[in-house]
Every structure is written in structure tokens, then in C-alpha cells.
């Protein structure tokens, strides 16, 4: 369970969109499409924020407005408290577009060098980061090959590397796993989780819901340019009308006894509905096969699986204790000491006050916070209800029940879940 989630709840927004609209017009200035329609959301520091929706729902348009590539027709957007056209703000942003738009005549190294220079990175730092990023995305051995000769997946990897060259505070990933093989997809998800744990703010746009579900703290679901649902994964997906109990394999007799107990305790109203053995996920099977092949040193002409996050991206990594200390300091200090510039968004003050009140309440139970942070893997992995209830969690990992928000469009969510490749009940979410 990343600490970022709780930090995010009290921090000022890195990105705020308020009633954002974008209408595209044709040559005769007639309205052609309303791609974004009064969309409002906030992304707070340290949060992994998901932007979900089917194709054409307005995800990329929203991102392009945030980046200043498009001008909004209505509403306001602020990134680090500044308008998107502010050039200095862009020093803190990393962006991966939905496709790899790279100079085909440059090789991987030259590509990263070029983008490093745009951030005015010093030569030595640039070289070091390029080496680490190439190693991280597994392209070191093909770094001198022109990018136009790369496969789509390899181009995607170099795209990810360029988005990280400036060690961004705010990373915007538009369909980051498109074109990647399962290893690459897993790597990207791991990277997002790792960056999220290190306090980076990430905006992740995708229509592959399994990818999003694995990594985001909070999300909005777009359809037809409008927000149809907003909240954490659990808030949106958890069904409180059923309970799943996982044990080692049981014989039929034991199952019958359990069923009997349930019937007796509920007066015959409830019984075991379905008994199954959990399946291994195809992704896990695939990764284990590839891992085995790599152990046997089988050669590949494409990208090499590295899995090691670039060292410079780990530079701000803190130990659990340090993070706990920092968090407590933040909570005690309140908003005044947060480094972010104030957001010029309506209604922000009230939210800040609410966040501060919540922070003060949480500060009172700082021991519990420390215990949670120290036992991060336990909290995220074992799903112990008692632990979950006693410790503040990032929204994605909260297992306490919450009713589905009233404004969530269940049909839209249903259609999105149908598109999802994952969604197995036995899947371990946010498997860090």
C-alpha cells in the first residue's frame, strides 16, 4: 500500500481542471464535435490518477489541453498553479503521447540526448541518465540503431524513456502500454507503481482497464466527453453483496460443512454460491516462461527485459521510516509548508480546509500511520480486513465498504469492464 495515497489527500493539486470543455469546429466554424464537456477533476501530488474511457471519449483531448497542445473552449486548467502555456512549468512534466512520435532518423541515444538538451540538462547528467534509461527500457544493445528501424514496442519504450529524462514531478502517460508485449506492460505498470511510491504524480490515460486497475489510486471515467464516474477502484468496483474467502484447497466434505454453517448462521438465507480453484493469470504464466528463457540465456533481437528502474529516478527514494517522518511532518505542518503554488481554481479553499481537518485527525493517530507505512507489503498484499480498517490507506487499497457514488453510470462501467482483459476476482491488485 503506497503512502502516496494518504499524502495525496492532503496535498495541493498538481493539476486541476474545472468545467473544462473543448469543441472542435470545421472550416465554416460549425460545431463538429464536443470532445470534452464540462470536465472537472483534480490530481494531487503523489497520486496516480487514471483517466479512463473508451476510444473517442475525450481522454487524449483532455491531456492535450493540460499540456497546452490544445486550447480549451471553456473552463480552466492549471498545472502546478500555472496555465498550460507556462513554459517553466513544463520543466516538471514528462509526457508520453498515445503513439510514438519520434524522429526516425535519430537513434535511441541521440533521441534521448535531444530531449535532454531541451530540458537544458548538463552533459554529464544527460549521459548518465541516458545510460540508465536505456538500460531500464532494455534498449542498450540497440541504442545506435535508427528509431525508424525499431518495432512499435521498442519505439514505445524509447518514448517512455524520453518522458522520464527530466525526472519529472508530473508524468502524463497516454495509453502507455499500447504496443508493448506483456513484459513491457508489466514493466510499465511496475514503473508507475514505483514512481508513485516515490511521490511522483502520474496521470494515466488508458482504455485497457486491467492496466489502470492495477496501478491507479483514483480515476475518472469519461464517456462522450463527460465524466460518468469518479473515485477509487474499490469505490467503483467492489461488490459488497458477496464475500470471497480464500484458503488452501478443501475437500467436498469441508465445503459442505462450511455451507451448513453459513445456512445456519443466516437462517438459510445465504449459502455458498460457487466454489472454484483460482486460475493463474495469463500474464503471470507468460512472465514466468520468459523469465525461464532468460535464465537459459536465449537470445532476442528486440528489447531486453531489464526491470531495473533508472537510478536517477530512485534518487528521491525514502525508506519507510523516512517517508513516515516526512508524512507526519507534512500533516502536522499543514498546507502552509507545501511546496506547490496555490491553485487558482474556484472552490479550492473549502477543499483545502477539509483536507487540513482530515490531516489533523490523522496526525492524532501517527503511530498507526507509521505502523501502516512500515508494514506496507502486508497492508497491500494480504487483504487482512482488520489491518485495513485500522490504518489509513490510499484510495485504491481501501477495503472498507463504501456505497457506489450516485453519479456513477453503471452501464458505462459495465461496458468498460467488458473491454477489460483482467478483472479476475482472485487477481492481486496493485501487486507491488
Amino acid at each position: 500500500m503506497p503512502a502516496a495515497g494518504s499524502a495525496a489527500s492532503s496535498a495541493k493539486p498538481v493539476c486541476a481542471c474545472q468545467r473544462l470543455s473543448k469543441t472542435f469546429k470545421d472550416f465554416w466554424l460549425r460545431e463538429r464535435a464536443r470532445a470534452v464537456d464540462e470536465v472537472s477533476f483534480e490530481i494531487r501530488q503523489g497520486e496516480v490518477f487514471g483517466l479512463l474511457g473508451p476510444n473517442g471519449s475525450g481522454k487524449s483531448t483532455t491531456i492535450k489541453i493540460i499540456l497546452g497542445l490544445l486550447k480549451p473552449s471553456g473552463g480552466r486548467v492549471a498545472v502546478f498553479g500555472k496555465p498550460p502555456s507556462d513554459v517553466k512549468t513544463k520543466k516538471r512534466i514528462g509526457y508520453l503521447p498515445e503513439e510514438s512520435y519520434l524522429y526516425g532518423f535519430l537513434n535511441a541515444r541521440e533521441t534521448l540526448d535531444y530531449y535532454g538538451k531541451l530540458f537544458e540538462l548538463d552533459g554529464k547528467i544527460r549521459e548518465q541518465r541516458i545510460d540508465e534509461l536505456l538500460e531500464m527500457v532494455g534498449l542498450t544493445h540497440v541504442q545506435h540503431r535508427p528509431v525508424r528501424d525499431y518495432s512499435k514496442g521498442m519505439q514505445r519504450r524509447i518514448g517512455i524513456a524520453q518522458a522520464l529524462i527530466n525526472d519529472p514531478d508530473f508524468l502524463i502517460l497516454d495509453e502507455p502500454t499500447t504496443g508493448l508485449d506483456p513484459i513491457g506492460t508489466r514493466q510499465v505498470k511496475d514503473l508507475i507503481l514505483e514512481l508513485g511510491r516515490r511521490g511522483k504524480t502520474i496521470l494515466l490515460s488508458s482504455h485497457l482497464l486491467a492496466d489502470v486497475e492495477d496501478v491507479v489510486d483514483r480515476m475518472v471515467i469519461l464517456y462522450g466527453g463527460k465524466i460518468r464516474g469518479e473515485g477509487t477502484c474499490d469505490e467503483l468496483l467492489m461488490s459488497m453483496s458477496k464475500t470471497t474467502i480464500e484458503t488452501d484447497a478443501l475437500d467436498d466434505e469441508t465445503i459442505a460443512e462450511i455451507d451448513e454453517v453459513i445456512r445456519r448462521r443466516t437462517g438459510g438465507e445465504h449459502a455458498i454460491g460457487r466454489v472454484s480453484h483460482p486460475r493463474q493469470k495469463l500474464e503471470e504464466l507468460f512472465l514466468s516462461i520468459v523469465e525461464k528463457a532468460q535464465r537459459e540465456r536465449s537470445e532476442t533481437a528486440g528489447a531486453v527485459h531489464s526491470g531495473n528502474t533508472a537510478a536517477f529516478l530512485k534518487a528521491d527514494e525514502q525508506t519507510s521510516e523516512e517517508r513516515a517522518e516526512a508524512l507526519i511532518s507534512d500533516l502536522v505542518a499543514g498546507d502552509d509548508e507545501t511546496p506547490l503554488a496555490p491553485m487558482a481554481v474556484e472552490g479550492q479553499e473549502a477543499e483545502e480546509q477539509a483536507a487540513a481537518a482530515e490531516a489533523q485527525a490523522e496526525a492524532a493517530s501517527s503511530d498507526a500511520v507509521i505502523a501502516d507505512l512500515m508494514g506496507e507489503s502486508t497492508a497491500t498484499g494480504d487483504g487482512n480486513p482488520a489491518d485495513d480498517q485500522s490504518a489509513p490507506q490510499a484510495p485504491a487499497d481501501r477495503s472498507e465498504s463504501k456505497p457506489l457514488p450516485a453519479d456513477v453510470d453503471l452501464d458505462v462501467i459495465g461496458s468498460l469492464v467488458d473491454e477489460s482483459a483482467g478483472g479476475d476476482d482472485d487477481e492481486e491488485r496493485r501487486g507491488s
Partner: protein
Amino acid sequence: MNWTDRFAALDRVQKTQGFKIAASIAYALIVIGALAAYFVAGDVGQDPLQLLTERFGDQSINESNRRALETILDPASFRLTILVGAASVLAISLAWIWLGIGLTFIGLKLSAGLIAGAAYFFGAGDLWLYLVGGIAALTGAFVALLEGLRALLSPHVPVCAIARNVLAEAVRMRLSIVFIILLIFGMAALPGLLDSDQPLRYRVQSFITWGSGGSFWIIALLTISFGVSTVASEQRAKIIWQTMTKPVPTWQYILGKWIGVAGLAAVLTLVCSTGVFLFTSYLQNTRAIGEITPYVTADPTMDVSEDRLLLETRVLTARVAKDAELPSYISLDSPEFQQAIDEREKAEQLTNPTFDFSNPRLRRKLENDLLQDQINAYRAIPPGDNRFFRFSGLGDAREQGKPLTLTYRIDADGNPPDKFYNIQIAFGSTTGGQSVKRTVGLGYLHHLTVPPSAIGEDGVLMVGFLNGQYINVGNNSFVSAPAQTTMSMPGEGMKVSYPAGDWRLNHLRSGFVQWTKLAFLAAVAVCAGSFLSFPVASLLSFSIFIVGESSRFLGTAEEYFQYKDRQGNIILYKLFTARFTDAIADLFSLYGGLDATDLVVDGYLILWTDVGRGSIVLGVLTSLTLAAAVFAMKRKELAIYSGNA
């Protein structure tokens, strides 16, 4: 590993610090060793003049030639020349090595040597050797200058990064590489296409015209198409998203693109100008018509052959020219002229009642026509008559004491090609002078050397032309032998000139002028590409280029363009065409007037003041164009709708 990977690996090796140090030491040792061997074992002590005499015979070298050759071929200065040459070669080679292209340099020389050797072995002519040598030299120069420019753009700031990227794009994308190869092959092939039977001066002039003028057109086409492509294609391919979402202000993006394109144009201009300069220098030292060997005349009675003289004084020089002045009454401001205009108007009114006197354009045309009539009348000399022409402002020439060149042309009787015409030319100041007789062909330019002593203290030279000749009948008695027809002396051929500078510097100024025009075209291309698609932007940029280059012609054509029918009715589309052409011609008059190649070919001085004035105006235009590009791009949305509607 394929060949591309191998070359890429070698490229990385030559850019390493270790290679540079090792290669520098090795190259220095080789040059020093070669020099030592040359001085110890070579035949430097032998008199080159003696070798020349043995070959061509003592009679063929007269005294003045001998003195000149002794100066040139002095053994002591020859050794110094060898040393300076070796040092230059070493310096250039070290520059190559430290630019990270040492192996490229060796590879290029080896390839050129192998191909030239094979061509020689199979009996190929000089054309092949010129071609191979030229390609190797031009490619080498291009690579070195490009690397030099890339090194200059190495600071890690966005403008430099973008400009460097443009240079990388230029040598890796098909569009630009085709132009570059075309240019290098064309320049290398040009020397082989010269007719060796032509007089040397014409060969030099042809080479400069095609080498300098032709290369300018190719580079201009490259600049426009590449400038548009590098901006417009980047937007179409959405690559610009990656750049503009980084901390790069729009003005830095546009400026970086322009620096890259204009830098490429500068490199190519420098390569071509250097190529033209070096081969012109080579041609200068080849045999002219009437010489048995360069600078040695076949006729021992002459110091220098006519071909050589004309080359050195009319082509490979930087002359200041003065046109003949017109009498004061042939002037728009003179009362006599205004009176003549009034009379012409009255006459016009009688023959053409629809003549519009209030139209300033028609009035201007009438004035020009009358002016031209009066000038033609002034330049026409009846048989046996004479006319004196006045040239002023020659004080500098008098002080320098260098001979002047009088250029003139005689037109008579429809200029039959087989007819020769007898004239007598007198020149001198108002206080005295001398005269010469000439029998000349009709319809083309002639030259006459005039001593500086003929210029008066006031800097005025008077030149008189007699339509016929005076014949000495003995006892200092002369009789007039007039020609049979009236002769006229067109204004474009009537001028005196004197050397006022070195042709090498003139060549340099010419290259600079060309680059300022190319830099402006680069700005136009980048600006057009910033808000238009590639085809439309290309069309617009090419149109501006063509209009700019033809603005002089447009200005002249517009004066003779009629937008009224015979009844005096205005034809609207013709009126619009006339006004539009007039405006365009005026707008691009400065651009069109900066035609440096013509001046260099005719050996006329390009003044630094003219270069500076032109550069400032073009610089301002370039800045305004780039500002327009920034404005257009800021207003433009770089992303487009990609949804389902």
C-alpha cells in the same frame, strides 16, 4: 552486424578522445617525417626557372617574364611555401580529427584515390579525374564544415539542440540529401564541361556563372523545400508534440529551426564558394590563349598575352565602374526637358484624344520615352562628326596610378557581322590628351586601356569618339576619312573602370550576399511551414523566391504593360495585374538588386557599404518573417481532433 552498423561503430570510434589524441600524434609525425625526407633528399635546390627554360627554350621567356618567374620560383620562398603548405595541411587534418571525422577523412581520400586510380588505369580522361577529385574535395569540405557547425551548436540550450537536430535531419532525410548530392556532383562535374579551346577569360567567366549562380539556385531550392519540410512535416507527423511539451518557448523553436536551415545554407554556400574560388584560382594558373605555358607568352615581343591581360584586368579583378555622364539638358529636372515634355504632350493629344494627362503613370512613361529618345540622339554620331563623353569621380584612380579600362560598343548599319568599322578615340583631361585609331567589329563590347595620366586633376576624364579616322598624309598633315553611316554608342557599353580591390575579397562578399538571400528564404520557408501544410507552404515559398529573383524584370515589364484598350477603357483584370506587379516589383526590388554573381563575373567591385545596406534590410525582413512565424504558431493548435465525430 551489417555495413551500416559497422560504419556507425567506426563513427563512434573516431569521436572518442583516445582516437583523436592517437591520430593527431600519428598524423603530425607523418607530416614532419615527410617534410624532413623532402628537404634532405629532394631536389629543392634545383632552379625551377632553369627547368622551364630547358623545356621551352630561352627565347620564349622574355625579360619581364623571367623577372616575374624568378620572383615566383625563388628557391628560398619556394621552401617557405612548402613549409606553409605542410603546416596548413597539418592544421586542416588536425581540425578534421578533432571534429571527430578523422576516419571519414581517410576513408574519403582512400575512396577517391582508388576510383581515380582505376579511372587512370582504364584510360579515363581529365573529366573523370576532375569529377572524382571534385566530389571528394567538396564532400570533405561539406562534412568538415557541417561538423564544425554542429560543434558550434553543442551548448545544451533548446535553440542549439533544435538547430543541431535540423542539421542531422538534413543529412539523413532523402529530400535534402538528394539536393546535396546533386549540388556536389554538379559542382564537381562543372570543370570538366568547360571548353578548353575557349579563351581562358571566357572559361573563367562561364565557370563562375554556372558555379556560383547555379549553386545558388540549387541551394535556394533546397533551403525552401527543406525549410518548409522540417517544420510542416514535423507538425503533420505530430513529432512537434514531443518538443513543444518540453520547456521550449515558441520563439526558440522557430529560431532553432531557422538557424539549422540557414546554417545548412551557409555550409553549402561556403563549400560551393570555396570550390568556385579554388578552381578559379587553378584556372587562373593554366595556359591562356597565346601562351606556351601559364604566364609565358608565345610572342616574345609581348609582355603578356591579350587573353591573360583581359582575364586579369576585366574578370579576375574588382573594378569600380563609372558611366558616361549625360549633358545637363538631358535630365528630368532641366527646364529644356520639361519644355520638351509639354510639347510631346501636345503632340500626343493631337494624335490620341483619350490620352490621360492626369495619370502619373502615363506621364512617367512619356518622360521615360522622351528621355530615352534624347539619350539615343546624344549617343548617335553622324559620319565624320565626333562626340566627347565625360567621366567624373576618377580622383581615386588617378591617385592609385593604375590604368583604366574604357569599355564601349559601336552600333551601325544593323551591325553586320562581317563589317569592321574605323573610328578614332581621343582621351585626356580638359588640358590635353592623346588619340588612338581602332578598327572594330560592330555590336559587341570593346576595351581600351587608358593611362591614369589622362585623368585631370579634378578627377575628370574626357573621351572623344570620331566617326571615321584622320589619316596622316605626310608632313604632319591629316585628312578626314569619315565613315559612311551614323554610328551610335549604347549606354550599357559606355563606361570606364579601374581596379579598386582584390577579386578574392569580391568573391567573399558575393558569397555573403548570396547567404543573406538564402537566410531570408529560410525564414520565409520556416514561416510558411509553421502555419501551412507542406504543399501549400512550398508553393508559397517558391513563388516568393521566383518573384524576388525576377523583380527587376517585373519592374521593367510593368512599365510597358498596357491596361487600357485602344479606346482608352480600363480593363480591370489588367489594371489589377499591373498594380499587383508594380507592388511586388517594388517590394522585392532590393532582393532582386542584390545580384552579386553578375558583378563577380564581370569583375566589378561589390562595395562593403552595398553589402552592409542590403544585409541590414534583408536582416530586418528576415526578423519580421520569423516574428510572423512565432505569432502564427502561437495562435495555432498543434493537436487536432482525433475522435469519432
